[in-house]
């Protein structure tokens, strides 16, 4: 049952990544790898949150680092820069429900201005959801960019036809 849940999560994430990626016109040859990265990343976040007890921000950070490293590894084969692979793969992890709840609680806050108790409750909900949305988005982007800082030589030459020679110690 657990395995089915994880696989289903990965599958749905892969479909979501392909669809949301398609809006931004990625090269056709990159689609299978985008789907794979999204599935692995989202399934990892799912496992960490449901079975490992991690919170959404740290689970997103781990998943983003894995997606970033994966795009570095897979980018060479299709001659795509890392961002072309990892941005679509990160899109299904953008916390849409928290963003929605932020908006919804803001509307309810405005509607209940006359009742201080209730309006404070909605304000609290607003800040809670806004904080989660912002920190998850930051973790996603920063985590996936992190491998560029470590492996910058490889990351900058993924679209190069000629493979650069490995620099050896003299």
């Amino acid at each position, binding site marked *: 049952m657990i395995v089915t849940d994880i696989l289903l999560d990965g599958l749905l994430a892969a479909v979501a990544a392909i669809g*949301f990626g398609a809006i*931004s*016109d990625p090269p056709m040859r990159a689609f299978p790898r985008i789907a794979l990265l999204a599935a692995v990343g989202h399934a990892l976040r799912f496992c960490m949150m449901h079975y490992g007890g991690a919170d959404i921000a740290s689970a997103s950070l781990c998943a983003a680092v894995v997606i970033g490293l994966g795009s570095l590894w897979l980018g060479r084969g299709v001659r795509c820069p890392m961002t072309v692979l990892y941005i679509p793969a990160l899109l299904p992890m953008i916390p849409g429900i928290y963003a929605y709840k932020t908006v919804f609680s803001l509307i309810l806050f405005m509607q209940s201005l006359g009742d201080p108790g209730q309006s404070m409750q909605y304000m609290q909900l607003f800040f809670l959801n806004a904080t989660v949305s912002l920190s998850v988005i930051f973790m996603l982007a920063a985590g996936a960019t992190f491998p560029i800082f470590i492996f910058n030589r490889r990351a900058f030459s993924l679209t190069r036809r000629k493979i650069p020679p490995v620099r050896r110690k003299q």
Partner: protein
Amino acid sequence: MKTQRELHDTLDFIATYASYLLGSGVHTSRVFRNSQRLGASQGIDIQLSSSLKNIILTARDTEGGEALTRVVGIPALPISFERNSDLSALSWDAVDEKLSLDEIRQRFDRLIDKPRMDPIFVLLTVGLANASFCGLFGGDLTASAIVFTATLVGFAAKQRMQAHGLNHYLIVIAAAFIASLCASAALRFDCTAQIALATSPLFLVPGVPLINGVIDIVEGHVLVGVSRLINALLLIVCIAIGLGATLLMVKDSLL
């Protein structure tokens, strides 16, 4: 050593190249790196400074020492990852194959003319993506099916409005309103209606500028990064307005 004419031509071309890259949604440091690589392949040192609307470029002949500066506007192009890959590859080809400026320009024109993905294909995949997004958030099958339909309607409306060249913010408000209004049909059925409503306008979330903004900030291009984030935030506010209009209409059935 370059003649004044050659320096002019190279700078003009690199200015177009850089503005196309930035316009197609490539993060700043990649644009700078690619443009400098392209300049180096022609024996010219390029330095850039960029905001969200303009780029300032200075080209300096590495042998003669002569320098030229230009300011170019960044065209508002749709985001394209394919162009990002192709143009990055072009800058490496220019170095590795020692291409002449004319050859680079010809290849650039060919890459720019490549057709985009078929709009109907994009429409269907976006519908499927949003439906599976609904599934990820715990929506049941009925809710996913409703989100699929709502997304098709909302995204098709967005495509039509874009073809008419309407203001971007208005498009997002209208599309969010249309999609969420269609999804509010879920309230009539016995399903996870709130999740359907919440997911329906999510195909409009500007994920690429959001992520690009953070990448720019992390890589030190803080001003451009913050501008990108503010831009994305405005679009999110537009989604909120469109969704909010629907929620105000149906909120009694949601509470």
